[in-house]
Each structure stands twice: as C-alpha cells, then as structure tokens.
C-alpha cells in the first residue's frame, strides 16, 4: 500500500522540484533586478549604486535631455516602419509562397535564414554593404554608373532608415513564417465555397483570408514591438548611434548613461520607461491570450 503512495507524491513533487531552480533564478535575476533598477531610478546613483532617495528627479532630468528626445523619436520612426514593413513584406511573401509553387520548402528556408544570424552579424554585414566607400555605392560606381549615390548610412537624416532596412531584412522571414502558418490553418472548404460563389482572388484574400489572420498579426506585432524597443546590438554594430547622435535609441541611451557616463540614476530611469513601454504592449496581449484559454 505504501508503494503507490510514495509514487504519487513523487509524481506530484517532481515537476515542482525540477522547475524550482528556474523559478528561483527568474525571481532573482529577472524580477529581483527589475525591482532593483526601479529603486535605483529614484536614487542619486552615479558611478556605483547609491541609496539616497531623490524622488522623480532622474525622470525630470531624463525628459529634459536632448539625446533622450532623439532616442525616443528614433524609436517611433524605427518601430513604426520596422513593424509596418515587416508585416507587409511578410504577408506578401506568405501569400505568394502559399500559391502551391515548386520548391516551396527551399525558398522558405532562404527567407528564414537571416533570422538565424545574430543582430551583431547583420549589423556588421550591412554596415559594410551600405558603406559608400566599399559597399553598394562603390560597386555600382565601379560598374560604370558614376552618378549612383547611396550614402544613407553617413547621412544623419537618413541613417535611422538604414537601421530599418537591416532589421527588416533580418526579421521579415520570421513574420512570413508566422503568416504562412496562419494561412495553412484556414479551412480550404471555405475558400472553395467562396470561389463557387464567384469571389475574385483579391476579394477572397481581403474578405476571408486576411481577417482570419488576426491572431497571427497580433503575435507578429507583439514580437516585433518588443524587439524594436529593446533593439541595441543592431544599432551598435551598424552605426553605433552615429553619425553624431542621429541613430541613438533608448537602449543605447540606457547603456551609455548607466555604464559610461556614470549617471546610473538617469540610466535606470530610462530603463524603467522602456520597461513600461514594453509592458504596455505585452500585458494587454497576455491578458487577452490567457483569458481566451479559459
């Protein structure tokens, strides 16, 4: 009689036991440090953490800084274009791939491959490719088209768009895969019925297919939005915030204020703003997801 009892209690305990180190580490290294950072953002920490309470001073300083303005504006430009173009391109590719074409698996792999690279690699590769001295511009001019110009990466007004180009190149394949999965989930019978009723292909996609992709859109949006907000490595590798401060984004701002400028309080405050922005995207999503499950 004792045998099954211990067996059951072991079965009850084992999952919790196995999970507990992960939970403990998450609690300390993710949530613990989030609280620590929050606390620091209200202190006068400079080079090292300090515990002198200063209230909202750091936030006031933060929003007076020109660099922060630039960083936030860049995030809006970058985030908007990045999410928009990725979704549009991903959807187009997914629809084209869904036409029962030959070698679909091969083509799909090609589009997905950039996702396998780290942003650092993408950044460095695009930095060379876009460099007017050695990259695209030099090559095309070498071919004889002397007046060809593409120096966005050196142009302070256009540099942020090169970040968009590189990021879109990296992620649109992933968005395509998300949409493709969504497309495959649509009931073929419904499409056949619509065709019988005489719907054009365009109307078919506009009225039936795309509305049914709503969940795929939502997941793509959430993934892209948080990637946009925390983008750091791509910017560092591609432009390092330059020319001047033209491509500074909140994440590079946070790092430089916290670690190189010895203004840890301001850096922590900017980290908080980023956290809240991400939370504003993720929490409603999680809430709606979890509610639907029940």
């Amino acid at each position, binding site marked *: 009689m004792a045998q099954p009892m211990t067996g059951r209690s072991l079965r009850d305990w084992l999952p919790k036991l196995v999970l507990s180190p992960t939970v403990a580490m998450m609690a300390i*290294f*993710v949530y613990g*440090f*989030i609280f*620590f*950072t929050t606390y620091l953002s209200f202190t006068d920490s*400079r*080079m*090292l*953490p300090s515990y002198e309470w200063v209230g909202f001073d750091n936030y006031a*300083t933060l929003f*007076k*800084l*020109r*660099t922060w303005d630039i960083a936030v504006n860049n995030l809006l430009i970058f985030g908007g274009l990045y999410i928009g173009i990725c979704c549009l391109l991903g959807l187009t590719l997914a629809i084209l791939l869904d036409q029962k074409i030959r070698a679909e698996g091969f083509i799909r792999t090609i589009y997905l491959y950039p996702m396998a690279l780290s942003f650092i690699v993408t950044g460095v590769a695009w*930095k060379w490719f876009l*460099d*007017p*001295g050695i990259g695209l511009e030099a090559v095309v001019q070498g071919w004889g088209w002397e007046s060809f110009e593409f*120096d966005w*990466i*050196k142009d*302070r007004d256009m540099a942020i768009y090169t970040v968009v180009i590189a990021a879109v190149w990296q992620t649109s394949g992933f968005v395509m895969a998300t949409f493709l999965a969504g497309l495959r989930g649509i009931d073929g019978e419904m499409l056949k019925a619509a065709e019988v009723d005489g719907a054009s292909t365009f109307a078919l996609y506009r009225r039936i297919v795309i509305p049914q992709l709503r969940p795929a859109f939502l997941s793509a949006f959430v993934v892209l939005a948080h990637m946009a907000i*925390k983008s750091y490595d791509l910017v560092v590798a591609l*432009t*390092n915030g*330059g*020319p*001047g*401060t*033209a491509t500074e984004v909140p994440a590079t701002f*946070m*790092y*430089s204020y*916290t*670690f*190189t*400028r*010895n*203004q*840890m309080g301001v*850096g*922590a405050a900017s*980290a908080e703003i*980023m*956290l809240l922005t991400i939370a504003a995207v993720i929490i409603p999503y999680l809430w709606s997801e979890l509610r639907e499950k029940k």
Partner: protein
Amino acid sequence: MAFTKTSKLLATVAFTSAIGSAAMAQEVEVLHWWTAGGEAAALNVLKEDLASKNVGWQDMPVAGGGGEAASTTLKARVAAGNPPTAAQMLGMQLREWANEGALGDLSSVAEENNWAEVVPAAVQEFAVNDGKWVGAPVNIHRPNWLWINAEIFDAQGLTPPTTWEEFNAAADKLQEAGITPLAHGGQPWQDATVFDDVVLGIGGPDFYRKAIIEADMDALGSDTMVQVFDQMRKLSGYVDENFSGRDWNLATAMLLNGEAGMQLMGDWAKGEIIRADMVPGEDILCVAAPGTEGSYLFNTDFFGAFDVSEESKPAQMELAASIMSKEFQEAFNLVKGSIPARTDVAPDNFDACGQKAMEDIVEAADNNALLGSMAHGHGQTSSVQRAMFDVVTEHFNSDMSSQDAVEELQIAVESAML
C-alpha cells in the same frame, strides 16, 4: 534590464577567476585593456619583473572600446565586493574611484622610491588623492599632435602650420590639389580630440583651463568659444565624405598612403606609422597641433590600486614599484608611443617625436601649460565629458551654427553637472 547585464558579467568574472588558481606564494590580479600585440608584449616586461620577485600575475584583460568594457567589468567587480589588485584607468576614473573610497594607499612605496620628485605635478594631481598615492602612472600620452605627410607637403611646397589660420591656408591648398586635407574618423572621441586642439590653439592654456577643466559657464559661452566652433565648422569641410564612423587607425592609414595630408591624433598613431615601415619625424612629421606649441595636453594610464586585504598588500606594493621602475617605463613606452611618466628616463632610445615630447613636456610644465585632455578622460568627469562629446559631435556632423553650439554646450554641461 541594466542589472541582468551586470549579473552576467559577474558570473563570467567569477568563473574566470575560479579557473585561474594560484601557484605562486603571492599574486596580483590586474585588470587592463592592453590586448594588442605590442602592448601585450610590453606588459610581459612587467610580468617577468614580478615573477623574479616571486609575485604571480593573474591577467584579467578586457578588450575593446578604449577601456569602456573594462570599466563596466570593474564596476561589477567592485560592486560585488571583490576588486582586483589593480586596474588600468584614466585620470578622471582614478579620481572618481578614489572619491568612492574604493582605492588603497601606495604612499609608503611612493616615498621609498621618491615618486613625488620624478612625476610631473599635473599627473600627481590625479595620482595623489587626499594626500595618498592611489595609483601608479604608466605613461604620458600627448593627444595634441598634428601628423603631416612630409612627401605631400614637400610636393605642394607647404610648411607645417603653427596657427589655425596657417592650417586653413594649407588645407585649402591641399583641397585644390585634390588631396583630403584632414584624415579624420567621425567618432565622438575623435571629434573631441580635435575640439581639444582647437580650444587650446585658439584660446590658449588659460582659456582651456577655465572652459574645459573648470567648466566655467562664462568661458563656455564666450566669443572665443564661438570662434572655436567656427574653426570646427571649417574643419568639417576638410574631411572626406566618407569619414563618419571610421576608426582612427584607418584615418591614419589614409595619411600614410598619401590620400590625406594631415591628421590630428595622439601619439599612439606612431604605432601605425612604424608598422607601415615609415619613420615618425621624417616620413610623417610630428608637430604640436596649430597654436598649441608650448602647451601639452596629456592623458595617462594609471594602475589604480584597490583597497585589498592585508595579505595582498605586499604584492600590490611590489607591483606598484615595478610599474614605476625606469626599466619598465622605458620598455613599455617605447612600444606604446607615449613617454615615461617619470621625467628621469633617458631620451636616447626614443624616436624624434618622443624626444620632442620629452622636451616639450618640461617646457609646458614650467609654463603651467601641462593640461589634462578632456577627450581622453583627464579634463572632466565622465558625465560632463560625454555631454561635451554630444555637442561637439552634433555640431561637427550637422549644420548647427556656432552660436547655437555654444548655447547647447552650456545647457548640456550644466545639466550633466547636476
């Protein structure tokens, strides 16, 4: 978010120090960012010297970013209560660490070896904090050099400029001849290196001290500062189109292969010149940046001594004594391109530029014109320094007017000092 990064660093650090277990009776752990071939070889001199005194060397190199990565690692180590025996740092960092109360005291070894007699007073201002020696200086770099491609200047019939007007005239002539006048890389610290030269060249040493080192608001907002930005605007027209983001050594390469006529860069450029089989002072001339003859901007690498446990202190003292020995100072600085941090090393083995530097520094020190370089962490605290970088870079890369730049500079410096 910031702290998950720190914790990762901590974990890495804990791991690396765990595997590097000790064999020697005494051991020093030294954090530095000298990982390039020549510098690493020069550090070997120090390691061997310590080994002969039976002191082990636990190397902790953190490469990259002119010490930015190293400084982040160092903060994590100190915050965790486990500082290294000594860490490479620039003057202002040394002062900031000393003010945090994290540094120890090298005064006994300093007195024994008479450091106060041989180290220039301006360097001592950083090395001595509150009457205590907190760090040992390794070298003295001079960022205010103008490097000139002699062949180009000969061909164009130009002579090295000694004022900014002469510089502009020479640059115009080069530009007409289709040569890029100024080899430059658009990175904030390089822009700031040039800015330092212009402030010192136009305003003179007293203005530099007031505006940069004391961050005096009137000086920062003065007409002289407007002229400085006017000159910066001129300079931004003398660089090639593709300058933005370029590393300094690539800019030096342009100078060496004759694409550009001049470069404003510190004496570490010598390493590149020698590697290209050219002779500093002959193929590539070294003169003080326009208008700065008689003054000497400097930046020094120190080994800051942390407040370590009693049993580690003897080894720390040995380390400091070895760093300040004439042999190491000479061997290291011959490789590094800088000059020794003690003035009693014979100049015979140094090249023409090094010998000129050793003469100039004595003259500048006598005239009270030996000044810490803002671009290289000896003029201002990190936050004010970076605020100045922001404005200088912003101005250099845009069409901002000099008047606007001066106002921006005042605002940025003021808000960074809060």
